[in-house]
């Protein structure tokens, strides 16, 4: 990194000296050719594209007329100003030899995309893309969209039309175009592939991608947050039909409260995620990177729980010890499970009670063990956070879910319990699945 910085600084200084008389406001740009040559050039943002061509062509052994400059999937037209494109320091422009001079294109750089909403020029300035920049920013940042050839991944690619919505960008093979790499598409239709870069750090080259957080948008329509009713400039738009909106703060609050209750959903395609907080159907957040918006600690919690949930889905078990709950993959033939990466508890796979030889105990007797069985290992007890007071509370007002054994508290509500972890409906009295019989037969206590 340091070496690269030094080198770039050096180049910048050299360029500054050379062009100091001509360029007042220099921008370092890399011009990349199809042969792989990268030419660093200092440009004035006030220049027209025509000037760039005149400046670059001799360095590439071409005439300005032969040259075509491509940026973000668009051929830049001679009369356009560089500053219209908002080029950042060290942006890569693609210079290719033009083979289709008669081919007229109407270029425009889109910087604005709404999901299933037509592009509207008036909104262009206000809209940004948000991305998660893993390194070096390690943060949610403003992103920029880029395009490349779906087949050969070259950036020397022109699109036939602008993407109009998020689906065009996120789903493959939606927008056609032309790859300038010879023989790549070879007369066939070329497909574009969109990707995102972080705009808040100096680019580390073309492989410096960031994950699009497409559900985080600028609040152009001044929609109020569904939870706190504030109108904020940046919002989270849930992928439900109604497009419900919360502010980012409330999104975090929602995610953290659901995490603590272990009420995330495990979807086979998406992973560990959440639906719209208004309870809409088919509204799962389809890009789990959005949870990176949470604090570091909470994201770690998210990752841990997600792993455990994965374990469960794959036939593993969760350690039944209070405050542990580590996921453990189990052996098919053996009922003895040890919580190796967690608290060290050794238990029976079938009944989730302390490991025993022979048949599992019937439920009534298990309950007694539940109440008295907290002293597994004095050392572990001292480590765990249950103090005496909470132990008493557990005895009195919580019972384990009959299905997953998660301790569930009864807050004076119905006998009809719904496990917060596995959603199993059960009866507080019978400690079995909730039935119509339960409803009719239990007297008030």
């Amino acid at each position, binding site marked *: 990194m340091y070496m690269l910085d030094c080198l770039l600084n050096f180049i910048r200084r050299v360029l500054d000296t050379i062009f100091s008389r001509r360029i007042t406001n220099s921008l370092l740009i890399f011009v990349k050719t199809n042969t792989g040559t990268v030419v660093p050039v200092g440009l004035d943002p006030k220049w027209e594209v025509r000037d760039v061509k005149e400046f670059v062509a001799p360095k590439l052994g071409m005439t300005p007329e032969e040259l075509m400059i491509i940026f973000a999937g668009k051929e830049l037209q001679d009369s356009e100003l560089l500053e219209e494109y908002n080029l950042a320091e060290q942006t890569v422009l693609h210079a290719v030899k033009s083979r289709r001079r008669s081919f007229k294109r109407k270029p425009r750089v889109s910087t604005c995309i709404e999901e299933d909403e037509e592009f509207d020029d008036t909104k262009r300035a206000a809209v940004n893309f948000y991305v998660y920049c893993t390194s070096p920013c390690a943060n949610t940042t403003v992103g920029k969209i880029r395009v490349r050839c779906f087949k050969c991944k070259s950036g020397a690619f022109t699109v036939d039309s602008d993407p109009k919505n998020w689906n065009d960008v996120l789903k493959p093979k939606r927008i056609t175009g032309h790859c300038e790499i010879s023989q790549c598409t070879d007369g066939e239709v070329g497909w574009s592939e969109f990707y995102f870069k972080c705009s808040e750090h100096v680019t580390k080259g073309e492989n410096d991608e960031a994950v699009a957080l497409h559900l985080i948008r600028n609040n152009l329509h001044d929609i109020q947050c*569904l*939870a*706190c*009713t*504030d109108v904020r400039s940046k919002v989270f738009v849930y992928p439900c039909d109604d497009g*419900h909106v*919360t502010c980012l*703060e*409330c999104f975090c*609050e*929602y995610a953290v*409260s*659901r995490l*603590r*209750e272990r009420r995330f959903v495990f979807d086979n395609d998406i992973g560990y995620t959440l639906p719209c*907080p*208004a*309870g809409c159907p088919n509204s799962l957040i389809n890009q789990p990177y959005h949870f990176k918006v949470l604090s570091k600690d909470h994201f770690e919690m998210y990752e841990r729980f997600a792993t455990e949930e994965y374990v469960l889905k794959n036939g593993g078990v969760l350690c039944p010890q209070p405050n542990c709950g580590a996921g453990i993959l189990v052996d098919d033939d053996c009922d003895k499970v040890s919580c190796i990466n967690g608290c060290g508890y050794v238990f029976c796979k079938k009944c989730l009670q302390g490991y025993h030889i022979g048949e599992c105990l019937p439920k009534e007797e298990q309950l007694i063990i539940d109440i008295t069985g907290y002293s597994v290992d004095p050392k572990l007890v001292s480590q765990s956070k249950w103090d005496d007071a909470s132990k008493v509370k557990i005895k009195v007002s919580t019972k384990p879910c009959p299905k997953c054994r998660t301790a569930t508290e009864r*807050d*004076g*509500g*119905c006998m*009809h319990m*719904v496990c917060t972890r596995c*959603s199993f409906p059960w009866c507080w009295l019978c400690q079995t699945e909730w039935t*119509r019989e339960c*409803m*009719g*037969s*239990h*007297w*008030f*206590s």
Partner: protein
Amino acid sequence: MNNIATQRIKREFKEVIKSEELAKCSIKVDLIGDSYTELKGEIAGPPDTPYEGGTFFLEIKVPETYPFNPPKVRFMTKIWHPNISSVTGAICLDILKDQWAAAMTLRTVLLSLQALMAAAEPDDPQDAVVAKQYKEYPEIFAKTASHWTNVYAGGPNKNSDFDTKIQRLIDMGIECDQARGALSTYNWDLERATEQLFS
């Protein structure tokens, strides 16, 4: 309490105050103390039900994670209803459990409870005894509910027959509420209620 919950409750509180239901005296919310974690709700018994003319008070506790989790609501006024415990006031209503959604408000909760009072759901009862009576002896149920409304919620319908029976048990040394509970449970059969109380 966290900011989101507080702010949200403050706004909802205003929403109820400005609502037309408040103007019609059908629902009301009061703060308890100056924190927004505990509130007192008030529902008027819906017309053409045994609860008509009564005023029912509710205890509303707002969790830290509101509005992503439902408020905890309980009837403070004793009520005879299949979905509400005649003993604790606990409520069996789906939107206060798994069907809660962050877009719901105190106002929607109070209106839903009012709707529940008007149309019970005896198949998902909180109080199995009441539910059984509601299904098997609807007339006795209506009279009992109306009597409870009169005694506990200020309803207009006095039932001197019921009062006489309760007085009989009081004379035997039984506490008033307990006597009413036992008689209500046994469909106002004085003998069976006595039997149960002294067994």
